[in-house]
């Protein structure tokens, strides 16, 4: 149906996944990821998927410090990956908030990847697209409504 086709087409432009791979600080008390999640919650981002991953990334010869030891190019270090799907307007505020909370200036602060999302489906209701991504009381309720010219 034409309506659905339009919606699917719009989603590709309107939804983005902000994928942050960050250094996992010590053990159970990963305090920096808790702070980031707190910060995101405060600004209205109420859905995140967090996974524990391993990774390494060469930083031009400099070593990353983890638990006191230096790690060079090819040794895995524990990391935290956060994936947040937001509307396009919310991408920059989310990035700014993550950087504000996570930046220490040391090697190992991590990277953020922006990935376009083709569609979002809410399993419970079958909603798709921007409506599925939207959460009641979240950031889109706080920001002024965006008027799209179609």
């Amino acid at each position, binding site marked *: 149906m034409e309506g659905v086709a339009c919606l699917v087409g719009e989603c590709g432009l309107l939804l983005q996944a902000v994928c942050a791979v960050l250094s996992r*600080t010590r*053990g159970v008390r990963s*305090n920096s990821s808790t702070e980031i999640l707190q910060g995101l919650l405060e600004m209205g981002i109420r859905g995140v998927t967090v996974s524990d991953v391993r990774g390494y990334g060469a930083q031009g010869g400099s070593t990353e*410090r983890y638990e*006191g*030891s230096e790690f060079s190019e090819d040794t895995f270090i524990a990391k935290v990956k956060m994936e947040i799907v937001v509307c396009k307007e919310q991408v920059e505020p989310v990035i700014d908030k993550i950087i504000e909370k996570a930046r220490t200036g040391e090697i190992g602060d991590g990277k953020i990847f922006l990935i376009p999302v083709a569609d979002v489906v809410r399993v419970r209701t079958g909603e798709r697209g921007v409506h599925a991504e939207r959460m009641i009381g979240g950031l889109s309720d706080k920001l002024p409504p965006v008027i799209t010219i179609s």
Partner: protein
Amino acid sequence: PIQHFPCPPQAPAVNTYYAANLSSASTSSLPVGIPSSSSPRPTTAAAAMLLTKPQLSSSLLASTPLFNPTSNPNHAKPIAASPSPRRRLRISAASTAVSPGATALSRVDVLSEALPFIQRFKGKTVVVKYGGAAMKSPELQSSVIRDLVLLSCVGLRPILVHGGGPEINSWLLRVGVEPQFRNGLRVTDALTMEVVEMVLVGKVNKNLVSLINLAGGTAVGLCGKDARLITARPSPNAAALGFVGEVARVDATVLHPIIASGHIPVIATVAADETGQAYNINADTAAGEIAAAVGAEKLLLLTDVSGILADRNDPGSLVKEIDIAGVRQMVSGGQVAGGMIPKVECCVRALAQGVHTASIIDGRVPHSLLLEILTDEGTGTMITG
């Protein structure tokens, strides 16, 4: 002599007393060599006091922890305690009186108010880097040692990391070697390295272990070589400075059973590299990496200044709390300079690796450790992540 600190009611002053046994007149004024025979009892006495007087909440403690160290060093060791977790000033409601009844009451009050802090940090590891004036003066040394034992008794897990510059210099002279420094860093050739290792690991370390034992704690003296606690690598300017090392790797496996069984590790920062060559590592740096490796809650650096000053010339401009971004700004803005920069950098590195707070505290203030850990106001600059 009765240990009382005169407290004029109009001037906020810090006046508290330990649990009854610890502040009894006989033990307080003696040098550290005298064992405190009542040391196993304070915990139960303190617990009993806490249990029997739960309603004591009147704050009789002053707001500022500033204590004038030059006024009669033989007096009691005051600590201030307040239960609120945020850093705000509190006005003292009652002044401390000299009468014994009020003394006992004030002691119990203070202990009761330290409860929230003790609860918050119970079981947590705290790394203390010990150096500077606090290491040279016997009174300050004994106050640091007693603080460590107290913290260990109430449930924190302290780890002591120490330097030892002045001792090294005096022994080098005895051996007939002139100590050399370049840009504030010691030039360490092979002979100097031998003397450094002997003095730091053999004398300074074991002296501290013995003092802790005498104060009632149990200490274990280690250096970086033990159980490969620290593996060193030559620092970038090793060509000019000799055997000065950086921390390549920390393996804290050996520390866990030690602190789990209630002992206090005392670590000398001499370590070997992969080939077994000994290096001297800066104690501040090593303390930061050890704190990261054990997942410490706090890192405390005892220094000879009151902390980070916003204006170098104004001692009243102490920065009490600051975050990483703020402190980096201060470094780039030139407000933090000289010897404070390596300390600040080591704090930032520790915070980036998960230590919750890193503090630069004034070692010249008696009981600076207790002030920092068990009170709101603290006694230096706390850097948070």
